[in-house]
């Protein structure tokens, strides 16, 4: 059965009339603002994990890189990206194709002009987007550890903040075409979890906008920069290059958890209009998902290696947090545990497959933890939704991100690599990123052992 007899495509650029402002009580505003002040702890945690999973001779460059990337991403987004991201009730660029309106790009004021006169909801939405961008921007930095130049990392963050993130955030959060799948394409969604007035793709915690997108950028960076020297020798298995500080990694997980709880609660208020009474369950589901994930990873690594693996367990915990982003506000506790367990099982298996079977050198495990677990969380939100059309909406969103954003990310970064080479020169990699890029190490009083795996 075909709905439209012809597939006539009419490309008529136009602007959407701004929608009425979304009301927000003072209590909601104050609580959401307070949560958004705590949420950056998740970014801090991921930064610490990135550093701990890299080598000691690149530790200072890694942590400084996180700060530099955050700074570049924030400035570029404020000056340029926020304009294209738009706001949930702001104007937007739309075109008409096959009789449907396609809201594809936001149209906000340049350089945050008039930010103070925006509605409270729009102001907090933009703040949330700044945080989501920060997370997306530092994810690829960990994947490029020990060979990704600081300048290239900052340039990548600028591309992300100016083009990739605004497109994705507008489509999903700011009344873009993915947020309007129900209204424009008749997919039966809405009233998810009994309170959420969603009308399309569901992603209140940024599983797609922050984590999946960050994972795509990480994959493109790994492909373009290549693996670390000596990682995949001519003969035999890949060389193990363990992270230099398991304490940073595990403490990073604890730090990230505090931020994540606030993050998911703030996302539920902003994007689902969840009542305050729904927030405790959202927070509990986030914890349950992470707990289920680490329990699964702990068990799998114990069976597989005889002892639990600390860095994989940390990745499992983080994978559970990422998987909870899309679903914590709309599922029950049992579903949250199940979602976490699947993420926790997936993590060690996929890390091994990516390294041993397809030669992907991802020191921080970002592709598994952020991309794969984010993808699973998005699909799980559809599977466990009370609305029969929600799974279809989630699959359409996944298809859009995988089919458009990943190739676009690779194309843009490949062009960028021509102007700002991603990979450090061989001498720089040999002496370590700290000495090469900063002129001094992170641990000057410690003896840095020669890397035996480096040949």
């Amino acid at each position, binding site marked *: *059965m075909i709905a439209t007899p012809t597939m006539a495509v009419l490309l008529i650029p136009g602007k959407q009339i701004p929608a009425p402002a979304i009301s927000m009580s003072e209590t909601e505003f104050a609580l959401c603002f307070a949560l958004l002040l705590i949420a950056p702890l998740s970014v801090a945690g991921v930064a610490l994990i990135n550093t701990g999973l890299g080598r000691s001779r690149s530790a200072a460059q890694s942590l400084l890189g996180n700060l530099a990337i955050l700074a570049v991403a924030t400035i570029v987004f404020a000056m340029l990206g926020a304009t294209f991201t738009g706001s949930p009730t702001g104007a937007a660029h739309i075109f008409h194709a096959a009789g449907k309106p396609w809201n594809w790009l936001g149209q906000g004021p340049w350089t945050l002009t008039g930010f103070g006169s925006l509605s409270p909801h729009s102001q907090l939405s933009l703040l949330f987007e700044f945080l989501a961008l920060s997370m997306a921007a530092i994810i690829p930095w960990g994947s490029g550890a020990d060979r990704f130049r600081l300048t290239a990392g900052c340039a990548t963050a600028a591309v992300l903040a100016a083009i990739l993130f605004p497109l994705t955030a507008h489509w999903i959060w700011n009344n873009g075409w993915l947020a309007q799948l129900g209204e424009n394409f008749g*997919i039966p969604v809405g009233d998810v979890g009994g309170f959420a007035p969603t009308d399309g793709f569901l992603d209140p915690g940024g599983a797609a906008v922050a984590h999946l997108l960050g994972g795509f950028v990480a994959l493109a960076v790994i492909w373009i920069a290549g693996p670390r020297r000596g990682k995949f020798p001519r003969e035999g298995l890949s060389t193990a290059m363990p992270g230099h500080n398991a304490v940073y990694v595990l403490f990073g997980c604890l730090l990230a958890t505090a931020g994540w709880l606030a993050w998911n609660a703030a996302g539920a208020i902003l994007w689902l209009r969840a009542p305050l009474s729904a927030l405790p369950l959202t927070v509990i589901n986030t914890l349950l998902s992470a707990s289920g994930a680490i329990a699964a990873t702990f068990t799998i690594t114990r069976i597989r290696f005889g002892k639990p693996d600390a860095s994989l367990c940390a990745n499992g915990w983080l994978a559970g947090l990422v998987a909870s982003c899309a679903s914590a506000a709309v599922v029950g506790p049992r579903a949250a545990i199940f979602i976490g367990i699947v993420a926790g099982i997936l993590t060690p298996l996929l890390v091994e497959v990516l390294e041993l079977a*397809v030669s*992907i050198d991802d020191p921080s495990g970002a592709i598994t933890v952020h991309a794969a677990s984010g993808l699973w969380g998005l699909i799980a939100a559809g599977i466990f939704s009370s609305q029969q059309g929600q799974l*279809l909406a989630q*699959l*359409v969103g996944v298809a859009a991100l*995988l089919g458009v954003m990943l190739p676009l990310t690779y194309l843009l970064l490949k062009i960028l690599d021509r102007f700002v080479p991603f990979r450090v020169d061989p001498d720089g990699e040999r002496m370590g990123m700290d000495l090469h890029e900063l002129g001094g190490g992170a641990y000057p009083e410690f003896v840095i052992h020669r890397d035996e795996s480096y040949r």
Partner: protein
Amino acid sequence: MKYAGLLVMPAGFFLSIAALVLFPDLGLRGVFVFAGIVVEAMGLYVAVRGHMPRAGESRL
């Protein structure tokens, strides 16, 4: 190979979008959207294979 795979991926996206426009039935839409994701997965597989080192070749 690596670029061919990435070029295939948008085809999967358009397949999914065409399903939304052409079919009102939820089940049929679901089948075609899923087929679109499968096409994207195949493209991703080709891209991943294209970035792998050849047998016996050392990467850097």
